[in-house]
């Protein structure tokens, strides 16, 4: 940090061993960002642990109607969950477990948390990634068309549709899609994602269409609108005007000069939306009985199954941090000015 701040031109002298001073500055920047990410995750772990440790009495939640009538089971469970140890000790044991992969056992059924959440996390990740891969080209395509027809009828129709869709909560979109394609109007697509014999959901691709479509519809309007407005900003700039004056065809102007510069705000909003998806997917999974983390998270909160809640909450926190980190790095890479600022 110091050499960067004090003598910008002297970096070469300060690090003669390194052949590429820009690279070293990059590494430092990256290390700092990574350090911040780790710090964020650690703070999350403190919050998650202490919030869930105070989530209510798990023993009472497990036993329900039997809590009052069977004190011996209360005692057994308390010992099993080590609730008699101080909370600080339990926190460090848990944190250590996160690193060693020993995630503890589910309170609800005594199975290891790792084996319970593993498949589900993969299933949810696939759902989010597929949705993102479908959503990004659609959103950029819509934005391009919209910007191309700025102020014309096509643009205003698209904008009205986008604003309407953005205003609909994802469960409403999901219910409408199911009614339209599965139950009430047509009967062409599976209504829920249940694969026979517990095979992964993508083994029946048709059953993933509606959940993916719901997530795409929930997220695409935001991305499309942001990209469109940054495209318009770029299209009004001097250098685009100059390119046009030079005789570059409008298609090329749009694609080469404008789109690349509008990509950075796009990345940021995509990252935000992806991070939102990691948590927002809960409702969609519930609606489609998708075997992801959603139903498990809701179920675990209801059971006060805190080992499960903690791991799932940390997973979602991890997705937030990592996605934002990647978005920041990509933004820097796509912004020449920021790129040189770090390297110089």
């Amino acid at each position, binding site marked *: 940090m110091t050499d960067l701040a004090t003598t910008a031109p002297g970096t070469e002298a300060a690090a003669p061993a390194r052949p590429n001073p820009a690279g070293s500055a990059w590494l430092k920047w990256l290390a700092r960002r990574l350090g911040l990410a780790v710090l964020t995750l650690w703070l999350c772990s403190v919050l998650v642990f202490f919030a869930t440790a105070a989530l209510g009495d798990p023993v009472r939640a497990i036993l329900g109607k039997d809590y009052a*009538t069977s004190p011996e089971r209360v005692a057994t469970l308390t010992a099993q969950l080590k609730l008699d140890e101080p909370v600080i000790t339990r926190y460090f044991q848990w944190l250590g477990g996160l690193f060693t992969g020993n995630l503890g056992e589910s309170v609800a059924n005594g199975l290891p948390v790792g084996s319970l959440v593993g498949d589900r996390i993969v299933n949810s990740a696939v759902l989010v990634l597929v949705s993102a891969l479908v959503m990004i*080209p659609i959103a950029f395509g819509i934005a391009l068309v919209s910007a191309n027809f700025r102020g014309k009828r096509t643009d205003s129709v698209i904008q009205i549709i986008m604003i309407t869709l953005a205003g609909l909560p994802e469960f409403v979109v999901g219910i409408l899609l199911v009614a339209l394609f599965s139950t009430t109007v047509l009967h062409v697509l599976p209504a829920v994602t249940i694969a026979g014999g*517990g095979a992964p959901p993508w083994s029946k691709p*048709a059953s993933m*269409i509606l959940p993916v479509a719901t997530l795409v519809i929930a997220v695409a309007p935001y991305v499309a609108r942001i990209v469109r407005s940054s495209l318009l900003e770029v299209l009004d700039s001097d250098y685009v005007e100059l390119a046009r004056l030079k005789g570059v065809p409008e298609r090329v102007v749009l694609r080469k000069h404008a789109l690349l510069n509008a990509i950075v705000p796009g990345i940021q909003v995509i990252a935000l939306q992806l991070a939102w998806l990691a948590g927002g997917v809960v409702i969609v999974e519930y609606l489609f009985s998708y075997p992801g983390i959603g139903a498990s998270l809701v179920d675990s909160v209801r059971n006060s199954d805190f080992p499960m809640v903690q791991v799932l909450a940390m997973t979602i926190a991890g997705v937030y941090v990592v996605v934002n980190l990647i978005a920041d790095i990509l933004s820097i890479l796509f912004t020449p000015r920021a790129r040189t600022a770090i390297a110089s």
Partner: protein
Amino acid sequence: MRQPPHSGYSRFQMTARPSRRDVLRFGMVAAAGLTGLTSLSACAAVPGKPDPNKPQVRGGSYSHGATGGGLKDTLDPHFPVTNPDIARCLQLYEPLLRWNANYEIEPSIAESITPSPDTTQWTIRLRDGVEFHHGKTVTAEDVMHTLAVVTDPKKTGSGGTELASILELNNSKIVDPRTILLQLNAPYAVIDQLLAEYTVGVIPTDFDVHKPVGTGPFAFRRFVPGQLSQFARYDNYWDGPAWVDELIIYDFADDAAKVNALLAGQVQSIDNLPNYLAGTIEQQGASPLVSESGAWVPFTMRVDVAPFSDVRVRQALRLVVDRQQMIDQALNGFGILGNDMYSPFDPAYARDLPQRVQDIDQARSLLAQAGHADLDVELVTSTAVGAGAVESANLFVEQARRAGITVRLNKADANVFYGDRYLSWNFAQDFWNTRNYLPQVATSSVKSGTYNETHWDDPAFNALIDRARREPDLARRNQLLHDAQEIEYHTGGYIIWGFKRQLDAYSNLVQGLQPHRYLPCSAFGFKHASFVTPPT
């Protein structure tokens, strides 16, 4: 959706990478949507009700959508926790006796069970040649092992509490491989009712919960807690093998997803259809399955604290209830009138006592006599009590107001309601499933009862119950039980306004499920279900 159809079309193309044929089909669907032909394609896809007289055929993979379930799911035959657990129990395991569709006991693995004259000894005779899924024949030894597991004092099974209090297993003996002599510590006339519960499924001595075997119509294949369980038809089933080849029970956390899966043909039946959907699914290729049940959601008044310790106050509160309105509004009409007595399917149920109806004047006069003309009480309710609870509590507030009674409603959180103060609320609610009279009394209406919410402990009542438990003669026993019910009818602490009707649903592509009083979805009797058209 107001999106242009072509954008939807491109989205599907991108997600699923469909073949050319699929794309064409989507194209046709989009075209149909465009030209207003949707009604045509919908008609083609909605099957009508099957002909009930069509002979059943074998084959197919049957899927059932079970309500609830989650990470607490288990395959343990003696500790079912969630609703899908109960469904699984009924496929894998069988008790010695079983409840039929009319809630009467019939033989199952045991072909007979006969008491000694004083009912302290019971002889169980096992059916010949019943085999577990792994090929071992059921013997007296397996049954003794099962009873020992169920009544294990360290880990008493859900259906073992009452059994544990009367069975003397050490003094019981195996007479021959098919005969057992059970010794009880006191006369007990209705042990057959305890041995017919699904929580007392017979397991072999070498039982392993990770590879569970029983004698039921389906054998275990696969189990993922919170998601699904998979079974194969057991061809050697003693009572005739199932029609379908395979059974998958899916957990559904969400009612909407469950119903959608049924309407889209992904599952062939679901249990616990929300009442308000009974009418609409009939236009969409499915049929509701309505059964009577003895399940009840009573108001519970503690008979040992004021003002409820005054029997006139209890009777007044029973008289302010408009029972039909409660059924119509709290249960969407899916209920049977209650008369402040439980166990409506018991042969001893006191049908002759006049149906109690709303009588505001009588209620006012009773309250005036008791010195509570302007009664003010708190009623504790919670969504945790289940469907119909909060709704009926709200109605009760309204109905009681007409008699000048102020009822303050306290909507407690699940953890609070079933927390420390559960079983000591003065005036609250609870839920109960179908039980016959004596087993119900043992859990709810004697001092030692596990869930005696009303703190009911009436000496005359206790004496009658004690005599009835020992009385082997059915007619005399029923008379004793009738007298006991009469005491509760006139002075009890429950307000029992109705019994729920069980509502499930099945697709018109399958047949064979019949109403059943014991458990949802034909007592989860998927053995009886078959596809109307044999799947290829």
